[in-house]
């Protein structure tokens, strides 16, 4: 799942539309739209407790019923979308920023630094993501910061490796060798020549990592390590739902669908973007 994207290095051309791109784009827009909407409007206040209305089925109270505190499930899902992105987005951004910087440096400097980066990323990869997230949660106390850091940590080596891989290819280009020979500083080469060339690859990778981050965030909050209650989160909704499985099975459906659609949307968007940026690889899957 963490396998680096293997797409040839090209400058982004005009986008070529394809089905995954369209479907992924729509789903992702929907996700972001709902998340933003939840900041200004939800059918009910998501945290409002109405014990008298607890565990109502769909349409008995609200479109999708109520949870064990009588909170409106639709409102919880909407606010959950925001909370999910609020963890996933900074986590990937942080991981990408560090990873890309390290990857670029490794490609530019090579030698011992490169070797250290590769070995260090081996070390991080050696820890199953959930396990290291649990450890970071134990270290910092559970909450959004711990979740963001935990997800960021395993994003760093992913971005470092992908960046290094494609940046190394760029460094072999003739005009860069020429620039190098003319005494252009490696930092400037990286900034002016390498990064623009690999931006497409990185955007594709970031989209896919965002999907993975949403999935991981859900897993962490299922284990009680995500955003803090009463802030709703999809993972915790599922863990609560498991408690009430035999009385209110409907509670176990909607949050899972929300997670799956968000992840699906971002994955499709990533695949679509890749195909759009590099049509020769279409239909090869990953």
């Amino acid at each position: 799942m963490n396998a680096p994207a293997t797409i040839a290095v090209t400058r982004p051309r005009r986008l070529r539309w394809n089905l995954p791109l369209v479907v992924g784009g729509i789903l992702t827009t929907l996700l972001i739209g709902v998340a933003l909407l939840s900041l200004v409007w939800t059918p009910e206040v998501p945290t409002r407790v109405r014990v008298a209305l607890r565990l109502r089925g769909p349409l008995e109270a609200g479109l999708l019923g109520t949870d064990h505190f009588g909170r409106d499930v639709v409102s919880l899902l909407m606010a959950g979308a925001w909370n999910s992105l609020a963890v996933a987005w900074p986590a990937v951004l942080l991981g990408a920023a560090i990873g890309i910087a390290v990857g670029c440096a490794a490609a530019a400097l090579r030698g011992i630094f490169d070797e250290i980066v590769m070995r260090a990323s081996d070390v991080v990869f050696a820890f199953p993501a959930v396990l290291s997230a649990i450890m970071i949660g134990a270290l910092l106390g559970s909450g959004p910061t711990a979740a963001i850091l935990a997800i960021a940590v395993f994003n760093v080596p992913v971005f470092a490796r992908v960046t290094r891989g494609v940046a190394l290819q760029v460094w072999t280009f003739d005009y860069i060798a020429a620039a190098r020979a003319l005494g252009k500083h490696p930092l400037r080469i990286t900034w002016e020549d390498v990064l623009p060339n690999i931006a497409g690859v990185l955007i594709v990778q970031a989209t896919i990592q965002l999907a993975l981050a949403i999935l991981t965030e859900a897993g962490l909050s299922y284990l009680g390590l995500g955003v803090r209650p009463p802030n709703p989160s999809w993972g915790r909704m599922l863990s609560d739902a498991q408690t009430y499985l035999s009385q209110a099975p409907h509670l176990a459906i909607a949050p899972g669908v929300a997670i799956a659609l968000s992840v699906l949307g971002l994955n499709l968007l990533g695949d679509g973007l890749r195909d759009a940026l590099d049509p020769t690889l279409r239909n090869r899957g990953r």
Partner: protein
Amino acid sequence: MLRLIASRTASLLVTLLAVSAAIFLILEVLPGDPAAIMLGTAAREDTLAALRLELGLDRPAPERYLAWIGGMLRGDFGISLTYRMPVSTLIAERLAVTIPLSLLAILISTLIAIPLGVLAAARRDGAADRAVLVFSQVGVAVPNFWIGILFILLFATGLGWFPAGGFPGWQAGFGPALKALVLPAFALALPQAAVLTRVTRSATLDVIGADFVRTARAKGVPAGQTLRRHVVPNALIPVATILGLQLSFVFGGAILVENVFNLPGLGRLAFQALAQRDLVVIKDVVLLFAAIVIAVNFLVDIAYLVLDPRLRSRA
């Protein structure tokens, strides 16, 4: 070739050492005094001091690190702070759940993925191919713990075919024990199967495009036979290596799924040991997880070296 393997082995050892140091450091700064945690709300100062002494928590950190690594090398994993038994026994008991669970999951995922992947490749761009692509996209997107919950809803509380969780133990007989592992194994397997299907499909497509297959087809070998004799065996090489890598994902995913199904596996042991700050158990279990991942990656690397002549000659 031998030199390459030697250097890979050296880097494997360096990585392992770095991982062990990282684990130890993290646990050193982890807040929470194991003695206080073990005593809970009943803790009194005199009892606490006695317990700290008994657990050896008063010794300096480097000494404890060396003692730990030295012990591991001798096969002595230490004594669990909470269970008061050798961690090796504890881990062995838990592995008796996690290993069968992981292998079952890998088996299921292979049985689903390889036929689907080959089918999709053989019917490239056809309806079957599209259906398989949709399956693989959706499968990757669905969290395994949610699949677990849905399975419980459907097959345990609904139809009552399988237990909703828990593990009767192998001493309860092969049947009941296996039954308790079926749902969690499927929950683990489905997302992995989705990934593997994609890999199988693209690997098969690569081979179909290769010269020797075209030659076989040109010589008039029937399509089905070409697929069976030439395409699939060759496509399986990359699939097998991905399968190796997946073992580590399955191990990691097992933490969540074991929690969903309440299975006494290694993942839950790690989770509980962390809550109890059973530092001895956490250290060993996390290192074990990491070592398995590293070892599998190493074996995959070596397998590539052996199998892929291009890499061999480059060495």
